[in-house]
C-alpha cells in the first residue's frame, strides 16, 4: 500500500497545487514531497531486509483485464533504494527552487510532483505496461520543466529530449510486447505450456523471455536497448543529454541526473539482464566497449568545456559509462557496484548541479572564464563544491570511490583470458576493459580538479557588473546573501552526510543489494547456457573430451565459477576491512 501512496500522494498534491492560488504552491509542494518521503521512510521500515531479493510491499489491481493489464506494484531492495533516492531528491528539488523560480510557480511545482510520482512508479512497477506508462510519462513533466523554466535554448533542448527518448522507448515497447506475445501463445513451440492468455506481469514474462532462442533474444536486446541506451545515455546516443542538462533549471538537472538517467540503467538491470541472458552473454563485450568509449569520450569532452554545467553534464555520460560497464560484467560485484553507483551518482552529481545552480542564481553565468576564486567570496559554497567534486572524482572514503571500484573490479573479474584470476567469474571482459575504463577515473580527476581549480581557487574573477566588494547590498542577488543561506546549506547537508556514510559504511547497502543481484547473476549463469557452480565442476572433470569452441568456453567459465561461489563473501570481507 505504501508504494501506491508514494505514487498517489505527489499526484494528489500536484492537483491541489493546480487548484489553489499560486502563493500556496511552494507550501503544498513542500508538504507533498515531505509526506512522500515520510511514507518512504515507513516503507523502508516495513521492508523485510532479511529477504531483500523477494518482491515485497506488493499490491495489485485489475486494470483493463481484457487486455491483460494489471496495476501491480512491488519492490525488492534495488527498487526500494532507487525509490528512496527519488524521495530524497524530491524535497531537495523543491527547496532549491524557492528563489530561482519566481513565476508560474504552480506549473513548476505541480509538474515537479507529477515527475516524482512517475519516477516512483517506474521503480515500483511489476507490470510491463505500467512500467512503460510511468517511463514514458516522465517525459511530459520534464518537457514542461525544461521548456518553460530552462535557459536560452530551452525549447530546442526540450523537444530534442522528448523526441529522442520517445522514439527509443516505442521500439522498447515493441520488444516488450513481443515477449508478452511469446509468453501468451508461442511457448508451445519450445515445448512449454503456453499461458494461453496475455499478461504483462514482469515475473511471468521473465520466465518466458529466458526460454527464447538466442537469436530472438539478440533482436530483443537491440529493441530494448533502443529505449534504455538513449535514456542512460550510452555512447553514441548521448547527444540529447548535454543540451537538456545545460538548458534545464537546477531542479530539472538534479532530477535528470539523479533519477531519470537511472531509469535506463534500472531498465537494463530489471529487463535486459534477466530477460535475455543468452543475448546479454553474447553482446556484453559490445555493450562494455560502448560504455568504455562513453567513459573516455565523455571525459575528454569534459576537459575542454568552459561551461561548468555542461562539464558536469558530460561527466554524467562518463559516470554512467561505469554503471553500464558494471552491469555488463554480469557478475555480482560488477552489478552491485553498478547499482550502488546509480545511487552515488544521484547524490554527488545532483549536489554538483545544485551548487552550480546556486552560483548561477547569484552571478547568472556558468562560464569558467567569468568565474574564479570563489573560495574567498563564498567559503561555505567552496567547501561543499570541493567536497562533492571529490565524491564525484572517486576519492577513497567518499561514496563515488567504492562503487566505481566495484564496477571496475567486476569488469576485471569478468575475464578469464589470463586463467586463474582470483575471484574471476568468467565472461568476455577482463583486464584490458578494466584498465582502459580505469583511465576514465584519471580523466575524471583531471577535468573535475581543473574545474575546481579555476572556479574555486585562483584569483577572484566575477562577471562584469559584479564588483568585488559589498555584494550584500547589491540587488542583483535578489534575496540571496553572497555565500550560501541556511536553506541552501540545509539542502546540501543531507547529500553530504549520505556521501560520507555511503563512502565509509557501504556494507549494509551492499549486503541488501547483493541477494537481488545474485538472483540476476544466477539467472544469467543458469539459463544463459552456462553451467552453474555444481555442474561446472562436472564439466571441468570432463575437460579433455570437449572439442568445440562453445564447450571450451563452458570449461573456462566453469573453471572460474568454482571460485565464484565465494567472491561476494570475499568482497564483503574486504569492505568490512575498509570500514575500520
Amino acid at each position, binding site marked *: 500500500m505504501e508504494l501506491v501512496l508514494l505514487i498517489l500522494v505527489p499526484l494528489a498534491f500536484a492537483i491541489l497545487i493546480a487548484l489553489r492560488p499560486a502563493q500556496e504552491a511552494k507550501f503544498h509542494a513542500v508538504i507533498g514531497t515531505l509526506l512522500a518521503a515520510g511514507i518512504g521512510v515507513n516503507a523502508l521500515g516495513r521492508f523485510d531486509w532479511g529477504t531483500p531479493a523477494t518482491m515485497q510491499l506488493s499490491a495489485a489491481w*485489475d486494470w483493463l483485464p481484457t*487486455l491483460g493489464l494489471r496495476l501491480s506494484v512491488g519492490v525488492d531492495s534495488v527498487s526500494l533504494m532507487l525509490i528512496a533516492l527519488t524521495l530524497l531528491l524530491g524535497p531537495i528539488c523543491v527547496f532549491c527552487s524557492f528563489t530561482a523560480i519566481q513565476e508560474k510557480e504552480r506549473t513548476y511545482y505541480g509538474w515537479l510532483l507529477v515527475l516524482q510520482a512517475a519516477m516512483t512508479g517506474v521503480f515500483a512497477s511489476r507490470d510491463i505496461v505500467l512500467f512503460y506508462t510511468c517511463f514514458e510519462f516522465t517525459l511530459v513533466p520534464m518537457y514542461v520543466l525544461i521548456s518553460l523554466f530552462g535557459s536560452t535554448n530551452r525549447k530546442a533542448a526540450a523537444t530534442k529530449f522528448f523526441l529522442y527518448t520517445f522514439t527509443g522507448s516505442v521500439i522498447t515497447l515493441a520488444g516488450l510486447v513481443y515477449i508478452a506475445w511469446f509468453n501468451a501463445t508461442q511457448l508451445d513451440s519450445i515445448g512449454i505450456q503456453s499461458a494461453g492468455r496475455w499478461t504483462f506481469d514482469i515475473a511471468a514474462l521473465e520466465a518466458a523471455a529466458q526460454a527464447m532462442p538466442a537469436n530472438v533474444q539478440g533482436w530483443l536486446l537491440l529493441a530494448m536497448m533502443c529505449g534504455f541506451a538513449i535514456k542512460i545515455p550510452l555512447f553514441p546516443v548521448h547527444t540529447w543529454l548535454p543540451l537538456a542538462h545545460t538548458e534545464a533549471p537546477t531542479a530539472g538537472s538534479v532530477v535528470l541526473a539523479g533519477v531519470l538517467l537511472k531509469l535506463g540503467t534500472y531498465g537494463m538491470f530489471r529487463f535486459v539482464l534477466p530477460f535475455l541472458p543468452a543475448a546479454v552473454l553474447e553482446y556484453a563485450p559490445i555493450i562494455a566497449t560502448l560504455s568504455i568509449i562513453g567513459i573516455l569520450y565523455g571525459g575528454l569532452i569534459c576537459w575542454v568545456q568552459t561551461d561548468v554545467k555542461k562539464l558536469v553534464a558530460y561527466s554524467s555520460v562518463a559516470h554512467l559509462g561505469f554503471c553500464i560497464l558494471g552491469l555488463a560484467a554480469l557478475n555480482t560485484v560488477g552489478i552491485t557496484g553498478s547499482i550502488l553507483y546509480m545511487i552515488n551518482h544521484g547524490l554527488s552529481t545532483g549536489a554538483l548541479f545544485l551548487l552550480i545552480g546556486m552560483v548561477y542564481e547569484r552571478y547568472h553565468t556558468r562560464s569558467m572564464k567569468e568565474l574564479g576564486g570563489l573560495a574567498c567570496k563564498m567559503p561555505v559554497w567552496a567547501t561543499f563544491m570541493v567536497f562533492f567534486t571529490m565524491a564525484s572524482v572517486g576519492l577513497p572514503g567518499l561514496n563515488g570511490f567504492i562503487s566505481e571500484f566495484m564496477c571496475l573490479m567486476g569488469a576485471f573479474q569478468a575475464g578469464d583470458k589470463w586463467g586463474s584470476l582470483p575471484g574471476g567469474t568468467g565472461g568476455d571482459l577482463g583486464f584490458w576493459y578494466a584498465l582502459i575504463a580505469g583511465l576514465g577515473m584519471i580523466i575524471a580527476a583531471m577535468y573535475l580538479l581543473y574545474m575546481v581549480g579555476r572556479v574555486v581557487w585562483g584569483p577572484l574573477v566575477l562577471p562584469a557588473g559584479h564588483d568585488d566588494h559589498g555584494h550584500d547590498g547589491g540587488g542583483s542577488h535578489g534575496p540571496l546573501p553572497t555565500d550560501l543561506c541556511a536553506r541552501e546549506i540545509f539542502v546540501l547537508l543531507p547529500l553530504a552526510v549520505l556521501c560520507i556514510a555511503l563512502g565509509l559504511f557501504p556494507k549494509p547497502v551492499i549486503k541488501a543489494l547483493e541477494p537481488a543481484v545474485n538472483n540476476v547473476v544466477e539467472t544469467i549463469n543458469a539459463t544463459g547456457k552456462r553451467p552453474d557452480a555444481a555442474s561446472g565442476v562436472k564439466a571441468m572433470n570432463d575437460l579433455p573430451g570437449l572439442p568445440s569452441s562453445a564447450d571450451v568456453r563452458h570449461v573456462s567459465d566453469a573453471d572460474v565459477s568454482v571460485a565464484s561461489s565465494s567472491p561476494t563473501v570475499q568482497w564483503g570481507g574486504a569492505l568490512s576491512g575498509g570500514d575500520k
Partner: protein
Amino acid sequence: MSEKLALLVPEIIVFLTTCIVMVVGLSPNLAVRRSCGLLSASGLFIAAILAINGPAGDGLLPGLTPYIKAVIALIGVLLVMLVAGTVDREEDARVSRGGVFNALRTNRAEFYSFILFSLTGAMLCASASDLIWLFLALELTSLPTYVLVTMSTRGTRSQEAGVKYFFLGALGAAVFLYGFALIYGGTGSTKFVDIASIIAQQGINQITLAGMILAIIGVSFKIAAVPMHFYTADVYQGAASPVTAFLAFVPKTAGFVSLILLLALVGWDHGTDKVSVGHTLPSQLRLLLWVMAALTMTIGNVLAVVQSSPKRVLAYSSIAHSGYMLVGLIAGPGDYGAGFAHNGIAAVLFYLAAYGLMNVGAFAALAGLERRGRDGRPVEIDSFDDLRGLCAGRPLLGWTLVVCSLSLLGLPPLLGFFSKLPLFTSGIASGEIVLVIVMGINSAIAAFYYLRFAAVAMLEDPSDGPKPLAAPFPARAMSGLVALVLVISLSFFGDALMKASRNAAVVEGSGVRAVPASPSPGHKAGDRHDAASPAAAPAQRVGA
C-alpha cells in the same frame, strides 16, 4: 424480413429523427428551430441505446452490427453538439434583431438532416449483409458529406473543398463499385454469407481477387488512406472545423466497417490451422494492405510535420491514424482463445471509438475559438498562433486540446495509448513485426506535431494583438469536455468497451472456427461472454 427490420430499428429511429428535424428546422419560431440540435442528439442517443440492446446482425460478424451502431450514434451525439452554430448564425442574428423570417435563407434543417443521413448511412454499413446494400450505405454516408462541406462556411474555400470532395468521392465510389461487380462476377452472389462460403469451398479465383483489390482501393477513399488520400488536407481545411471532425470520423468508420466486412468474405483463417502465426489473408491482399498501411502512416505523418495550419496537421494525422488501423486489419481476428490482444479486428473497432473521441476533443478546441474577420463576421482560427497560451486563457479548451493531442500521439496513460497497444499486440501476434516497427517509428514522427499542439497551448504565452474569441456555443465546449473526460477515464475504466469490441470482432460463417452469435451482443452480452471462461468457449460452440 421482420428480423431484418428489427435489426434496423436504430437506423429507423435516426431516419425518423431526420424527417422531424427537416420540418422543425423550417419553423418560423426561432426557439423551435434551435431545437434541431437537441432533437438530433436525442434521436441518436435513443438509437444508441436501442443498438446496444438490439439483436446481433445477420452478416459474417454478427457482433459488429450493434457495436458499430452504438459507437457511431454515441459519438454522433458529440458531433451534433460540436456542429452547433455552424450554419444559420447570421440568419438567427438577423431574425432576433427583428428581421422577418425567410424559410429560404435558413440552412439548419438541411444541415442537421444531412448529418443524420450520413450517420444513418454509416450505421447501415454495419447492418450490411449484401454487396449492394453495402454500396448504398456507403454512398448514403458520403453524399450528404459533400453538401455539408460546401455549406459549412460561406467562403469559397468550402465550395472548392466540396467540389474536390465530390469528384474524388465519385471516383472512389466508381472504383469500389467496379470491385463489387467483379466480386459478384467471380462468385455469382451478392450475399456475404454465400460469397464467403463459395470462397471457403472453392478458394478465391482471379476475378474475385481483382474485385477485392479494387474494392479495397476504392474504400480507401473513405478512410483517407493511400492511394486515395489526396483530397484530405484541402477538404478538411476548407470545411468548418466541426464538419471536419465529422469527416474525420464518420466516413472513416463506415470505410473501416466496409473493409472488415469485405475482408471477412475472404477470411483471415484461409486454410490454416488453429495455432497459426502468420497471415492468413491471400498473399496479394496482404501485400496490398501492407503497402497501404506502411505508406499511409508514413505519408500522413511526414506531411503532417511540415504543415503550418492546425487543421491541415489534423487532416494528415487522420491519414496516419488510418494507416495504424490498417495494421489491425492485416492482423485479422487472430485466435479467439488468446483474447483481445490477439484480435486485430477488435483493436480496430476499439481504435475507431477512441479515435472518434480524441478527434472530437481536438476539433472542439479549434471550433471553440474564432476571430473577427475584416468585415466583422466571425471566421475560424487557422493558425498555431491563435492557440498560443490557450491553457492559461481558456483552460477548458486548452486542456482539452493538450490532452487529446497527447492522446492522439499515444502517450500513456491516455486512451490513445491503450488503443494503439492492441494494434501493437495483434500486429506482433500475426507476425507483422516489421510493420509494427514502422508503426512505432511513425508514432515517434507523430510526436513532432502533436507535441507542437501541446506545447503551443500549454507552454507558450499568448501572442500579442487581439486574442481569439470564444465561439458563443457552449455545446461545442461541452462536447470537448465530454471527450476530455472520456479520454482520461476510459484508459482506466475502459474495460467494458474493450470487451464489447472483442465480442464485436467475432467472425462467423465461412470461418473454420466459427463462434456462434450470442443472442443479443453489445455491451451487456459482452459481459455475459466474459463470464464464460476461455475454456468454456468450445463448449459453447458445440452447444450451438
